[in-house]
């Protein structure tokens, strides 16, 4: 049967990764669109488009990073990655003890890397679309020397120097990461019960 031969030739396909990533992307885009819409006071359509753009950008860059770094990793670590991807668990070797720390570090790093990518991405997207900044840049009132000193002393936090955009993206990223983490845990829980 040539059709079966074709599949035999293809070998092992990353279908589960594709299906699960599509699901995660949809969830993340939906959640982030809601938050961007509320925070930035924009319409449904642009908020969904921005969220889709930012998440697709972060995902693609993540894939490119993984695909380019994977051949460079030391052999014992590389085989642990292979073990996780193919069998969903690690195996025992000299790296096995460090893996929980590596995983947590990777999670934290990817959170901040994604946040940075999304912030820069939104900035560039708005520039490319020729949209004036969403939030009005608050004009610095002319302050006396004392007031400026007070401001610097308080770390300028209450003055709202962190723009609405940054807060919106940070919140969106945090919510989507939480949702993804919950989904991953749920999947593991379901798999371990069967």
């Amino acid at each position, binding site marked *: 049967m040539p059709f079966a031969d074709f599949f035999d030739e293809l070998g092992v396909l*990353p279908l*589960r990764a594709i299906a699960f990533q599509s699901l995660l992307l949809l969830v993340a885009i939906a959640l982030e669109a809601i938050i961007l819409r509320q925070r930035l006071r924009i319409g449904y359509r642009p908020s969904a488009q921005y969220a889709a753009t930012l998440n697709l950008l972060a995902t693609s860059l993540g894939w490119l990073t993984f*695909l380019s770094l994977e051949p460079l990793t030391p052999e014992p670590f590389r085989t642990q990655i292979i073990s996780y991807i193919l069998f969903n668990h690690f*195996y025992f070797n000299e790296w096995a003890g460090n893996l929980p720390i590596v995983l947590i570090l990777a999670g934290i790093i990817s959170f901040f890397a994604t946040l940075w990518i999304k912030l820069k991405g939104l900035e560039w997207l708005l520039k490319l679309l*020729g949209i004036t900044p969403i939030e009005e840049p608050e004009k610095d009132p002319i302050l006396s020397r004392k007031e400026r000193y007070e401001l610097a002393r308080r770390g300028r936090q209450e003055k709202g120097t962190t723009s609405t955009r940054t807060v919106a993206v940070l919140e969106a990223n945090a919510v989507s990461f939480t949702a993804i983490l919950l989904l991953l845990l749920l*999947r593991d829980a379901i798999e371990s019960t069967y």
Partner: protein
Amino acid sequence: MFAFLQKLFIFKVFQPFFTGIRDFFIPSSYFSWKTMIYLSLFSWLMSWLAFGLEATRFTVMLLTSFSWLFLSFGVGWGLQANNVKLFGIPLAPWVAGAILCGFIFGLIPGDQQELAIVSWPLISALIIIVPQFLTWDGNVKIPPPMTRQQVILIFLISLLLSSWLQFYFRLQNWFDDYPSLMAESFDGSGFVYRVPGRTAPLSDGVALLTLTESALQRELHNRPWSGVERWLLNINDQLVSLRREIRDRLVSPSREQRFWRIDVRPVTASNGYDLKLQAIWQGPTAEPNGYYLERTCQLTRVERPATGPATGLTPGPATGLAPAAGVAPAVATGTTPWSNLECDLQTERKTGRPA
């Protein structure tokens, strides 16, 4: 007259059919996708003509290139014009992109299949994107923000598709590096899926065990029993050289060789020993406690007339000169113990670690 009428009648009946064929083959205007296909066919035929007339390589290449370009634009245009869709997605840029990829990476020498497939979504995205930035007279234009947003999304989606394709090829690289992984079950995986009904290939450990078996046959089969006993007594040192020998004899030492540990365990049996040949997998596996492959060999003691090779009855151990010292005391009794090694055909796969 009657025949003529009949012909006429048949012609009348088939006329729509003939006009249909004519309309299908002859483009309604010169500026159409069919013209492109004909141009492609024409330059393809011309390239063969040029090839037959032994024109320069450059001419042939130029003609075939034009043929490919016309073909991809013609097919893309045709699909676009007829609005061919699959699951609501227009097929035109993808098919045109595939043809273009085949052409571009066919030009580069060597096997570029992987690169061609990975860049297919990107080239298809370019086919969608580039026309948005061009006016009909070929000038660069800047599309409205709505289109710009769509263009960005299309590019990112194609980048993601390309990453998935690249991930597929990366998986195949892993299986090339560690072939025994193919023999595993991927049911627990969150990433990969094997089309069901496909038999998992044999693990490479089987080949290693076969090599071990032939090495043991040479060392322990048809030997004086005392030498065999000495070999078994000294098994740990013997295993060191055995492992080295097996590693040297492997045809293609793959990366996964370091995951296999060869072990031979003698167990006392009624008339000699049972040798358990084990290939222990120390790499990634679906089994939480690992697995090993085991083949059992029976090393039995057989009594033979003391004269040994000279009788011609035994399939002579021609190199049996060395253990002569061990044989000597047994000559008086009339028979000497020799060894016989027989191995089971099948290899068992057992989970866990050997006890």
